[in-house]
């Protein structure tokens, strides 16, 4: 369900709205697009990043800017939502790489994947458990088990082999079960 637009734009397709933005710099058309696609995009980005809403908001803003910067290359062979999701995944991957580099340099102040046992009330919080998975495992698990993507699509979006995607998924599920059972298992 992608519809969350203003009533006056409910009858316009994504392409019509995009054309209105490109040709007339139509703010209302952009707002309609934004309201239609941002809720899903934001939820996905926030879940994949697992670094809080502020980080996710920054990424979503970057996604919209980048989307309109590169709309000239978009051929409309896929839906606008899919294309937007692709940009979002690309941005998330870049961010996660940046976090990884920061960690290697000992500069990452962001929360690391939890190794300590969780308090009992948090064990039922599936969302939090997903957030505690290692980045690469979390990405694959969310895209496959929550978003319903195939390994081929995941591999394409994340720039990894399909086999690696399958391995990450397997490890992610094991770890998630361990976290949910309170064992704090490590792979």
């Amino acid at each position, binding site marked *: 369900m992608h519809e969350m637009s203003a009533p006056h734009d409910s009858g316009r397709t994504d392409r019509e709205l995009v054309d209105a933005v490109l040709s007339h*710099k139509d703010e209302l058309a952009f707002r309609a697009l934004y309201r239609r696609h941002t809720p899903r995009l934001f939820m996905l980005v926030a879940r994949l990043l697992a670094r809080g809403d502020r980080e996710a908001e920054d990424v979503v803003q970057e996604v919209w800017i980048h989307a309109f910067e590169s709309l000239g290359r978009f051929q409309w062979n896929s839906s606008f939502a899919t294309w937007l999701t692709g940009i979002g995944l690309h941005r998330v991957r870049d961010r996660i790489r940046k976090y990884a580099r920061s960690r290697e340099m000992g500069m990452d102040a962001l929360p690391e994947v939890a190794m300590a046992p969780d308090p009992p009330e948090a064990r039922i919080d599936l969302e939090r458990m997903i957030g505690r998975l290692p980045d690469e495992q979390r990405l694959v698990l969310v895209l496959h088990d929550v978003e319903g993507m195939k390994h081929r699509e995941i591999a394409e979006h994340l720039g990894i082999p399909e086999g690696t995607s399958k391995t990450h998924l397997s490890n992610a599920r094991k770890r998630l*079960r361990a976290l949910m059972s309170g064992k704090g298992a490590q792979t």
Partner: protein
Amino acid sequence: MTDELTPEEKEALGNLPRERMPVGLEARVVEAMREHGFLEKRRRTIVLTGGRVAGLVAASVALVIGAYSIGLHRGGGETVVPPAAKLMEAERAPVDRAAKTPPAREEKAEGITDNEAREAAEPAVAEAEQQVAPESRTEAGKKDILESREEKLAAPRTRPVSEDEARAEQTWQARPDEEARAQAQREATAPPAAKTLAPEPAAKDAGRSRMMTFDAAPRVKKQSFTFLLNGTPLTVEADSVRVNEDERGRILHIYTPDGVIRLRLAGD
């Protein structure tokens, strides 16, 4: 344990929310889009409702009435004096102030003889000349005033004028000594309390004060001045006239609402 999800696990993952609208992000993104030039710059649109139109009309009417009232209050409905003529007013203010003696004083002055009046007027005339603004006490300024008084602007008036017109003209024109003396007489015979209205401590302040007094005084739009041009009378309608002198001779300045006419006087 297999890698496959159990039905409970699938259900739990399937029940996770898929959408969430971030609060306050829309305005930020729209602004960022605007900064990048993808959206038009913000334009403020004012919708004219009935109430706003009524308010605008009311404000316009109030503005017009206010301006009209101020105009009536300050100008008395008369025409505006050109700047050049105002400068002349400042120079002649002390003498003119004597002309503004209330009519009651004039009636009092009628009861005295000419000699008594002249003697009484001497100090007032002297005081008036003392209070001429410093800038007009230069040689040229003094000469202007003296000339204008002595020559009575080249020729006598030919048409009869009413008493009001004459008084008003005295406000704007240089007068012969007789007139100045008569005015001074009236001031001299006025009650002391009235005389104390005039004194100013400094010449500059005095000039400014006199200018304000002039603004409030009744004004005459135009007056007729008659000159003898090669023996032929020439009548000119103007606000005022004035004679100045430079190295080449004397120049007659005729101040009209449309501008100043300068005539070089030959044969001096």
